[in-house]
């Protein structure tokens, strides 16, 4: 196979007779990534990575969702460990449909995330002590002071979240200087304009 890329050329790929077959659904499981962009700001859902475990997911998330702008912390949870409420519309909040429930079973800390606008990201609003998912919603309705309409709620057991360690925060310390990772830093449009003007004048 001929390639303009010397790295590809060096690999000496044989000419492909037919398309290689790919196994169906051969991806690793997914992990949800939450990012804190500034000290004191709430963690916000940023996206998803594929990984074989949460430590690997953290490695990938750090460069997938913490490679630009600023970052002061990151949380990771296996997608299947996220309990998701129904999604409401118009002026209806998820909590309008949550009934108060009491539970005397073993309580666990659960992190609660709210969605305020469809298509936007879920934002961390606090933690509650609850025995199960329904109980967590009920506790959250009772204890979290929420003024806005909540269209969707995620609940994740605190013990299911991998949180970046305080002493590891330095891994993001040089981020604000990495403006070369933003397309805008290259002022491409200005350079093209300048080039075209030079062409037109010559």
């Amino acid at each position: 196979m001929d390639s303009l890329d010397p790295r590809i050329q060096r690999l000496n790929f044989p000419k492909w007779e037919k398309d290689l077959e790919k196994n169906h659904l051969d991806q690793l499981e997914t992990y949800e990534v939450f990012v804190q962009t500034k000290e004191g700001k709430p963690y916000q859902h940023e996206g998803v990575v594929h990984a074989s475990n949460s430590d690997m997911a953290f490695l990938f998330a750090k460069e997938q969702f913490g490679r630009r702008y600023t970052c002061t912390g990151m949380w990771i949870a296996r997608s299947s460990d996220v309990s998701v409420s129904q999604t409401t519309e118009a002026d209806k909040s998820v909590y309008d449909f949550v009934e108060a429930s009491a539970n005397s079973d073993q309580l666990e800390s659960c992190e609660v995330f709210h969605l305020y606008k469809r298509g936007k990201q879920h934002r961390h609003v606090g933690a509650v002590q609850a025995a199960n998912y329904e109980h967590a919603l009920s506790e959250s309705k009772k204890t979290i002071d929420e003024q806005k309409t909540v269209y969707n709620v995620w609940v994740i057991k605190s013990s299911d979240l991998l949180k970046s360690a305080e002493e590891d925060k330095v891994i993001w310390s040089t981020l604000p200087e990495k403006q070369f990772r933003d397309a805008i830093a290259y002022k491409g449009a200005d350079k093209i304009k300048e080039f075209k003007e030079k062409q037109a004048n010559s």
Partner: protein
Amino acid sequence: MTEAIKDLLYKIADDQLIIGHRNSEWTGLGPMLEEDIAFSSMAQDKVGQSLAFYNLLHDLGESDPDTVAFMRNANQFHNCQLVELPIGEYDFSLVRHFLFDHAEMIRFEMLSNSAVEEIAQLARKLVGEIRYHVMHADVWIKQLGVGDTRERLQKALEMALPYALGIFEESKYEQDLISNDIFSGEQALRDTWQSSITTVLTETELQLPDLTTLTPLIGGRYGDHSDHLQPLLDEMSEVFKVDPGADW
């Protein structure tokens, strides 16, 4: 003393530039999308770190960073031979990354206390980036250093180790650097490095050979390189040499 400091800065900067360029060869070819981006980002970090050190060299009277990076021949480079080896397969690239970055982290921790304030400041600033690089290497080595993949990693480790020991080839200014508290020296670095990699390897099924039985592959610090470096430099500087004044 300036010559001793320049020698120290050149070997650090050249190591970073060459391993950064080598690792960037994986961009687009990594084993999975997420890892491709992570490995490429680290390669970019390395090139950025080399720029910071070339800038310090420029302050000491050396040519500007682009000229230093792109216009020298292989025998003018001070990098260890480990970093110039081809990327091979992913097992080798990961093992090299593991062995190199542990040394790099310790080197930067040592330099954080250097008597030369400019070097100490830079080392303190970059140590966080390297901390992630080491974290990345350790998680992968622990993941692949057991079970089915152990054997491939073991082979890569045995192949890479004599080159890795070449990281610690001493400078002709070694004693000056140590006695003036500029850098604690390669031997001290090697000792700490050995215990640092051993700690990670004991959590895997990989065996670290007795390092005293290995002959370090040295020469890189004095411009003696394998046949792999010059072609890398030719490829890396190709665009620069077409139009050295280009702004991009």
